[in-house]
């Protein structure tokens, strides 16, 4: 069995006195698509933000591809990583946000090539070629020179996915990627994500409310509530026969 892409051991996170994560332990294997579900406030978003160190964890350990996130361990001492090292770790993890967060002053293509040029020091013409190819893959080859404000929500989110992919990440994190979209635009984004999982074998951790997506594209469904993992399993099993009351209560509301 290969080493897990993500490994969490007793991850805790507090905001002030509010404990949001109360000991999360899980593993994501390479090529696995894990969907995290749960009511709002259950800590799902906070957890995936911890994976790329946008949030600092307070206790426990978190590894991505065998590397400790945000820290370096020497003996039994932990050292905080320097800015540059955190950046290097993050550059290998793509993230897609609920609110897209495209750079508003840049066109779709500029959004996609910015990080490869600045962070990876890719030559500009190579970055442009790769960027055009990525935008073609998400179905936006017509929109290279369009600014985000002129794109629909679904198009913006597809640019955001292309932007994250441009860094050739080994892991993609999706934070409720379709929650801010009009219902008729959800499908186009989910299609891109499904293709990413099936055609490219991308390892993905997806926080979502889309049960249909989790059932179809997910390898694992994780149900979180109140800062802990309540239930884990194959999506079909979890949705068909939830073992815990809290999972049942949640599913009865969203299904």
């Amino acid at each position: 069995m290969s080493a897990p892409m993500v490994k969490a051991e007793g991850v805790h996170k507090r905001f002030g006195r509010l404990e949001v994560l109360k000991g999360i332990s899980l593993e994501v294997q390479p090529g696995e698509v894990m969907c995290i579900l749960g009511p709002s406030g259950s800590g799902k978003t906070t957890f995936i933000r911890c994976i790329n160190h946008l949030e600092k964890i307070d206790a426990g350990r978190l590894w991505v591809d065998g590397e400790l996130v945000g820290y370096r361990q020497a003996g039994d001492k932990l050292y905080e990583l320097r800015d540059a090292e955190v950046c290097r770790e993050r550059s290998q993890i793509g993230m897609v946000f609920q609110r897209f967060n495209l750079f508003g002053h840049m066109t779709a293509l500029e959004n996609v090539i910015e990080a490869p040029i600045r962070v990876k020091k890719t030559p500009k013409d190579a970055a442009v070629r790769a960027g055009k190819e990525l935008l073609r893959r998400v179905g936006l080859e017509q929109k290279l020179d369009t600014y985000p404000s002129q794109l629909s929500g679904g198009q913006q989110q597809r640019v955001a996915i292309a932007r994250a992919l441009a860094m050739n990440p080994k892991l993609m994190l999706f934070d409720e990627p379709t929650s801010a979209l009009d219902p008729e635009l959800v499908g186009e984004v989910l299609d891109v994500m499904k293709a990413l999982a099936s055609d490219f074998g991308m390892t993905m951790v997806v926080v979502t409310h889309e049960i249909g997506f989790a059932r179809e594209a997910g390898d694992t469904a994780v149900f979180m509530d109140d800062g802990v993992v309540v239930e884990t399993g194959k999506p079909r099993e979890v949705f068909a026969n939830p073992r815990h009351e809290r999972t049942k209560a949640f599913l009865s509301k969203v299904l």
Partner: protein
Amino acid sequence: MASADTAEPVRPDEIKAIPVRHPGRWVAAAIVIFLGVALGKSIATNARFQWGVVRHYFFTGQILHGALVTLELTVLAMAIGIVLGVLLAVMRLSPNPLLSSASWLYIWFFRGTPVLVQILFWFNISALYPRLSLGIPFGPQFAHFSANTLIRTFVAGVLALGLNEGAYMAEIVRAGIISVEEGQTEAAQSLGMTRLQTMWRIVLPQAMRVIIPPTGNETISMLKTTSLVSVIALTPPELLGAVQNIYDRTYQVIPLLLVASIWYLILTTVLTTGQFYLERYFGRGATRELPATPLQRLRRGLFSFQHASGEVRGASGEGR
């Protein structure tokens, strides 16, 4: 589906209503026209305006050079102010408490004392640090100015105005930075961009949209504030100093102040135009359609005049 049965929907008549009358507007317009004519007549006929003197001095070398010095002071002081402002704003938002309090203290001091006092202070800096009186306070880069008393007043003026402006610009830049959504920073960080790259490539360009209008305001304000430097007798003098030098000799105070005023107005107009184009440049991506430039508006106006229907669409794609 009822409409499908009726053969032809009858189009109702165009509305032809009697418009509401606005007698108040006519009265107000009459008053404004009366006041305007009265003012115009007075300006044209009051011999004490001495328009001949205004015309005589308007393009003289002294005045033109004064306008140039005013522009130089404005540009240099604003350059110092903007660079300092960005630095102070970033310091102010820094998690390091020492940096942010240092920035706070700077802003507190330079906003808290009158700029005229600061100008006099810099002019008299030699009384405080006599050693510097030989040369220029800040290092060898100004060395080519050294020992020249004429330029020393200029440098004192630029420093006073620029350091003062830095305090105001800091607050403007800070407002711009915090106006940019947190998500932009997070997206940049998640791509592995460093803090500096994020600030420089992502946050500041978007903050510019908020920063430019008040900065234009500051520049126009600075153009006129440079006249305060006349108290330290710049040689060669800036615009106000130049006209003062002349009317101290000729006693033609009013016409020469008019000369200065008209030049200030001209320079302000030029700066306002520049601001428009800067705002337009940094507005890209923020609005769906950029505002038309005067030239585009003119062209569009002429075009729609030819085609009375006026169905010309906006020139949104232009200028990118």
